């Protein structure tokens, strides 16, 4: 709701002009959408409807596509919008660390052992694989491509893994693989939006924002949702991936830098002491509160909270992000070198943030889009570098959290936005100089570790080529429902009224908690 027509000069604090009243009334009327009309109308028609044998559709069941009106109350004291709220049910995890490999890592070179595909390496792809499919770059008849790396089985769980992740191998018994993840988006930005906001279109709230909205954060001196990037570029989905969408923007993710100032311009300008800053903020606070009392715009709350948060962060964020404070042995375990921008540094920072009560930590590592268009995208060159960059830090993060007893109430998720094809990419129908694979939304692999997750198992199965799912497909919304369940929520009930609909992370299609992976 825009208050651009307000003329501060004409009013005293607390007075509202008749023109503003009219604007507000108009705005309120405009907010009454068709859905509101149908809902109130449905009181009469609805009772008739329920009386018919179609009553089962009228009553939302546990897997209904539409959520009931929010029976849960998420309002808080406006001065602390991120304060903690208890979860709906007893939670298995208190925080999430999401490691997103932007670009879509090739599951066939990491976790999916397909000896039949290796046998058919170099042969023309059968027509049945290509019929009716859209590819990002493949055209004509591509050749099948076996895994570029050897596989072996590891540990008690017997998980198959390639030789690219030697450090992570030690921890496979703590990991639960979902090999039958599925998405309907075959390009990066919409697919990443789907993974992180539940919708392939812009404007929706990200997972971390929902979690902050539902649970708040433990440490009020740090942002509850922190994002760290590495790999050289931002993910294709951009800042929308951690935006708050239609939720109040106080719940958005804060992208921090892992070296130097965590957030630019966090420090006071020169000649400004902390107490002077405090006085200044106190004055701004007062004015903002008066504005909020007058107009009730939740964005004012955000503004107040962000100023306060920035002030508190000056102390705590710099300390949290400072990995110099870690002993050498720990830094060596992660392979982190302070001063660089690297996934290893980010993992160590993530562990420190988790210790300090940050609710949702997201790490993006860019560069997994192994099309094979150049050396950086080649499966035997750039891909190997990416593996090297994430292998040791990921394993160290798991080991570190486990040692400190934090793995039992943390959820770690590792994965991309879709999978890669068993066919070798042939851009423009030509054989390319480097080896790569195209996008495959039909099947990909994500793994989870931590509290509430059954360790050492694999859920779901793909065919011999690793192309399509043959058993237990898991949609992204199913994964979201499961993660929300572990955090203590029924995904239908964590909702926010917007545009006449009770919006929820799992959106409008039916989603199912994947009970098979729960401990």
């Amino acid at each position, binding site marked *: 709701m825009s208050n651009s027509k307000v003329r501060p000069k004409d009013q005293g604090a607390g007075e509202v002009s008749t023109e503003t009243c009219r604007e507000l009334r108009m705005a309120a009327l405009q907010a009454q959408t068709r859905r509101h009309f149908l809902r109130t109308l449905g009181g009469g028609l609805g009772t008739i409807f329920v009386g018919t044998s179609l009553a089962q559709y009228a009553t939302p069941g546990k897997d209904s596509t539409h959520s009931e009106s929010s029976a849960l109350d998420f309002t808080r004291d406006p001065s602390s919008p991120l304060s*903690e709220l208890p979860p*709906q049910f*007893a939670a298995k995890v208190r925080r999430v660390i999401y490691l997103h490999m932007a670009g879509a890592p090739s599951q066939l070179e990491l976790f999916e052992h397909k000896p039949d595909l290796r046998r058919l390496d170099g042969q023309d792809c059968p027509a049945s694989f290509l019929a009716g499919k859209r590819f990002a770059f493949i055209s004509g008849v591509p050749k099948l491509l076996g895994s570029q790396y050897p596989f072996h089985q590891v540990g008690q769980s017997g998980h198959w893994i390639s030789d690219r992740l030697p450090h992570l191998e030690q921890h496979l018994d703590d990991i639960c693989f979902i090999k039958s993840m599925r998405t309907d988006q075959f390009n990066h930005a919409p697919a990443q939006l789907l993974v992180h906001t539940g919708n392939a279109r812009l404007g929706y709230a990200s997972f971390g924002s929902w979690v902050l909205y539902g649970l708040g954060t433990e*440490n009020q001196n740090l942002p509850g949702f922190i994002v760290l990037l590495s790999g050289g570029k931002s993910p294709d989905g951009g800042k929308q991936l951690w935006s708050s969408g239609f939720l109040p923007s106080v719940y958005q993710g804060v992208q921090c830098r892992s070296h130097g100032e965590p957030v630019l311009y966090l420090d006071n300008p020169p000649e400004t002491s902390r107490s002077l800053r405090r006085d200044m903020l106190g004055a701004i606070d007062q004015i903002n509160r008066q504005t909020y009392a007058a107009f009730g715009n939740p964005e004012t709350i955000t503004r107040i909270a962000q100023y306060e948060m920035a002030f508190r962060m000056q102390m705590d964020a710099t300390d949290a992000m400072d990995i110099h404070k870690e002993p050498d042995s720990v830094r060596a375990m992660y392979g982190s070198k302070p001063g660089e921008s690297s996934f290893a540094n980010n993992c160590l920072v993530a562990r420190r943030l988790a210790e300090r*009560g940050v609710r949702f930590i997201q790490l993006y590592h860019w560069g997994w889009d192994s099309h094979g268009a150049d050396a950086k995208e080649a499966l035997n060159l750039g891909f190997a570098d990416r593996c090297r960059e994430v292998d040791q830090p990921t394993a160290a993060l798991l080991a570190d959290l486990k040692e400190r007893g934090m793995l039992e109430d943390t959820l770690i998720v590792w994965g991309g936005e879709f999978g890669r094809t068993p066919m070798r990419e042939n851009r423009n129908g030509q054989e390319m100089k480097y080896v790569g694979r195209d996008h495959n939304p039909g099947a990909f692999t994500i793994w989870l570790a931590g509290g509430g997750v059954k360790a050492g198992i694999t859920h779901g199965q793909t065919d011999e080529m690793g192309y399509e799912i043959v058993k237990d497909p898991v949609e992204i919304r199913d994964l979201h429902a499961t993660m929300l369940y572990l955090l203590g929520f029924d995904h239908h009930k964590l909702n926010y009224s917007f545009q006449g609909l009770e919006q929820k992370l799992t959106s409008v299609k039916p989603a199912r908690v994947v009970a*098979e992976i729960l401990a």
Partner: protein
Amino acid sequence: MTAPGSRILREFRLVLLMLLPILIVMVLLVFLPPDGKERAEWIQFIGRFHPLAVHLPIALVLLVPIVELAGRSSRLSYLRLSTSFLLGLATLTATAAAILGWCLGCSGGYSGPLVTQHMWGGILLTFTCWLCWMLRAGLGQPETLFRIPLAIAVVLVAWTGYRGGQLSLGADHLTEHMPAGLRHVLGVTPNGTVLSKADPNTFYGARVQPIFAARCVGCHGPDKHKANLRLDTYQGVMRGGKDGPAVQAGNTQGSDLFRRVTLPANHDDFMPKGGKKALSSDEVKLIELWIAAGASETLAKDEIKNAPADSVAPVVAEVTFQEIDPAAVTKGRAGIAPAVAQLQKRFPNILDYESRGSADLRLNASILGTRFGDKDLADFAPVAEQITEADFSRTGVTDQSASTIAAMKRLRILRLTNTGISDATLVRLGAMDQLESLNLFGTNVTPAALPAISRLPKLARLYAGQTSIPQGTPVPQALAGKIVF
């Protein structure tokens, strides 16, 4: 002979003549019934024509009522002239089919109630056909009397044919793909009933026998046992059949069963016969592993390593959500609500209910760090028994709070990371019979505290990294596998 009697004999010579073969067949069946044993080759050869020959009497018997009904209309009234001829042909072909059926029954592998029912159904059908023919041809008055045996004949055709189909193609051939609704209405038992129960905890009972039941028992079971081999029981499997034992314990290559299921599909000896799909590679692997491990009936399920994963996973219950009843929640919290509210005001953001529907409390003082000390913890004594999760990591809590902590008898999770507590506190935790997770990372606990800790009945995870407990310390038996360094 009296005049009417000789007239009967003269006019119905043919009819009466037909009675003779029928009687012969009945004699054969009474004195030489199919008993599962094999007889001469030539009998077996002509017996193979029974499924072919049987189509004739089926068609003819079913044609007769059609012709009779159609013949009622004046346009088609000529049809009724042929009924008698059709009935005669039906009787003749039914007799021939019955004889061939008896020959087939001599080829071995057939015995049991299914065969007996089919056989007697066929005989009764032949006799009923003959009776219809006789009555229709005018031997009985009125002519319409023949309709009764005709109706019986039609029913017998259906029933005998059904039994015959079961013999050839399996007892559940008709019902295998029956829609569930129809199945329910007709009261047909669902598929997958194992013919004889083997112990599901053994490898044989859990993994091998289901394969036999699904893919082999149709032809090698109680009703039909080709080559005299029965695969529905363990004894049958080990006994083997006409061609010798099917399985040799410990010797995969020497086991004929294994040989036959791994042959190419077009090989003469390939099993399962009859155009059926070959066993899957997982199924073959299971049989191979079982034979190699000694083909035992009693070997436990988990004893055989590297078996392909069980594709029939146990059904996992779907996650359901219960509605929270606000009134019940308020009532449950009534006792402690004032104390909780007061503590929340004094110490914001560290104490709250475990969930919206619960009256249990969660205390997380780690955020306050060293600002939270023993004096502050003492203020929580009134609600100590409601606290199920307590985190004092990096706070100023010391052994002075031992009694307050020990009073939290219902704790499930206790975190004392990087605090000043020592063994003195830990030995007092004996009353925490719900404690599942104890985190002592970075504290000064020593192995002396381990015996007391090991007595906690529900403890599943003990974190002892960076403590004074060295990594290789011998731990009490109760803590084996639960301690994380």
